[in-house]
């Protein structure tokens, strides 16, 4: 890293170099005799120091994507390169090292913390596994430092998860992810279970940590306002595929894909005047089953502009303006 790029990333700006390259990634799950195509061929790069937001409705494959990226799942096809190396082929110490570099923060802070362990041990688990502390006192110092970093205090190390509120538990989850000094964190709906006033605390914390520690985030959420606020670039998924990807402001001000438009129009805005004037585009029906997705364009069953041709014409993944990618169909010139 040159001096200049280091300075840039320290400001939380992406420096343009890919940290993760995802090529035609697929993940199928076996259900009975069929395959559930949770992720069906997505290609993207996550750049060093950026926050990439992934949005979509339940079942679109956003969480599965996150889990494949941190090696919780083996992909069914395609590859993920981290620093040029395929992460799913890494074994032994190489694999262990990748596990250290890539961490995850989960949605439900209640379910993702072991209720029988004290917080100090939960946070230190990664430190122990990767032998990052040479002595007990060093281990303890690191735990205390981590707890303070995320806005808790030293004394909290001896308590159990149930003694904390939801927001505090999510802070513990963040501290655990930070403990092994990762480069990349997948945050899967980290604030969805929290009240709005607490949500803002955790979002601000994540932004601060990114600035201080050069972290790269994949931020998964169904809440478009939150995603826009925290992300540099955003990808919109529908039924296992990416339909649009662009820098955050560009995506929200100039959505091209009909699904992105519908998704944005469905978000209620906390402003009565805006709501009064807004033309809402309400989508009909539900998301089809990923076991047997529609042929051609997957969105055509709910798309207001669908024509017969959409049943056999696959949309083309295309860069329509710099950095703005869209699964282009007949609606997009």
């Amino acid at each position, binding site marked *: 890293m040159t001096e200049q790029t280091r300075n840039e990333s320290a400001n939380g700006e992406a420096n343009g170099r890919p940290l993760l390259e995802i090529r035609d990634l697929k993940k199928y799950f076996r259900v009975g005799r069929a395959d559930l195509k949770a992720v069906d061929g997505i290609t993207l790069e996550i750049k060093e120091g950026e926050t990439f937001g992934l949005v979509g409705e339940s079942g679109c494959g956003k969480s599965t994507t996150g889990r494949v990226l941190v090696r919780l799942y083996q992909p069914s096809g395609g590859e993920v390169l981290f620093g040029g190396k395929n992460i799913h082929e890494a074994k032994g110490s190489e694999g262990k090292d990748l596990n250290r570099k890539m961490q995850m923060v989960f949605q439900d802070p209640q379910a993702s913390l072991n209720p029988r362990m004290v917080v100090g041990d939960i946070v230190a688990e990664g430190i122990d596994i990767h032998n990052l502390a040479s002595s007990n006192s060093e281990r303890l110092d690191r735990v205390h430092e981590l707890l303070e970093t995320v806005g808790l205090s030293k004394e909290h190390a001896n308590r159990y998860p149930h003694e904390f509120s939801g927001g505090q538990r999510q802070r513990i989850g963040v501290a655990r992810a930070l403990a092994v000094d990762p480069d990349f964190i997948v945050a899967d709906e980290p604030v969805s279970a929290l009240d709005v006033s607490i949500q803002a605390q955790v979002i601000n914390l994540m932004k601060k940590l990114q600035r201080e520690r050069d972290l790269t985030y994949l931020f998964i959420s169904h809440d478009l306002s939150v995603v826009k606020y925290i992300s540099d670039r955003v990808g919109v998924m529908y039924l296992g595929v990416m339909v649009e990807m662009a820098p955050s402001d560009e995506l929200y001000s100039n959505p091209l894909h009909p699904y992105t438009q519908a998704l944005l129009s469905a978000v209620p805005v906390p402003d009565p005047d805006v709501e009064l004037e807004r033309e809402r585009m309400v*989508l009909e029906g539900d998301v089809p089953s990923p076991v047997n997705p529609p042929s051609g364009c997957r969105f055509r069953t709910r798309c207001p502009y669908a024509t017969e041709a959409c049943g056999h014409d696959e949309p083309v993944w295309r860069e329509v303006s710099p950095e703005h990618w869209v699964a282009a169909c007949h609606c997009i010139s």
Partner: protein
Amino acid sequence: MAAVNGEAILSVDDLRVSFATYAGEVQAVRGATFDLRRGETLAIVGESGSGKSVAARSIMGLNPVSNTIVRGGEIVFEGEDLLKLSEKRMLDIRGPKIAMVFQDPMTSLDPTMRVGRQIMESLKQHLGMSGSKAAERAVELLELVGIPNAEERLKQYPHQFSGGMRQRVVIAIALACDPQILIADEPTTALDVTIQAQILELLRELQERLGMSVILITHDLGVVASTAHRIAVMYGGRIIETGTVREIFYDPQMPYTWGLLASIPLPTADRSQDLIPIPGTPPDATNPPKGCPFTDRCPYAMRICEDEMPGYTTFSDEHRAACWLHHQLAPNVEPPARIGGAK
């Protein structure tokens, strides 16, 4: 949107509800006063633990019998105090007159019973309809809530419906006996945004068509902006501010409401600026503060806030807030951030 100045169809006065637990008495609602007017949507907004759901369930008489303690207050509907009615009398109100839609449509439907039977249950029970007549009405109801192929769908089980469709079924059940009041407790929280938009649209449409009065309970201020006429903000078991939608959004008078509005990321927000969170956590309901429940988290708290609960200050016919900042001796404080342009 109209219908703010109707007559009150339901009045809740100084409601106090507690639960006996091993850890002590949890004071969930500590003096809530509000009324619901004919034909309006009243939104009760608050964080988890603010007492909003308990207040709603008290209207329906649905709090667990074994450990609920009603400490005081009354809920007047059609000249009678619902808190004093026998369970037998409540059966004639719960369903036919006041109905409820719950958050999670999977758990509020019986998974072992066909959807048709679940809808017909109350038709037979309350309206004394025969089987065939009830079936006819059930088809009508499913069509009313926008479920296609209603006749086929009646024979299916809840698991054969998607989340949004299930919530429509729950709404159909609630509407079965043509209730005057519909209480919707977080009706869209478990749903995706595009489905949420469908359900909100449906609720708005149904209210206009059927002229119901609706109590919408939610934590999502976005949902409120597009659906409610009036808002009551609840915190720590109390209603700390009420007013019309415009008054609450454009001229809030209580620091908690300010904080609530400032902490939501807006689609138009500037990403380089931090959100303004409310520091700390809500008060412990087993040992609630003597004074204003927001004191610990309030950046403007004064000594009196700790000691004494403020009374309401009235700002307009509809708008009032409980905050010591409006006392004549209190310092003049400007709210930190405002939403929208117009006031």
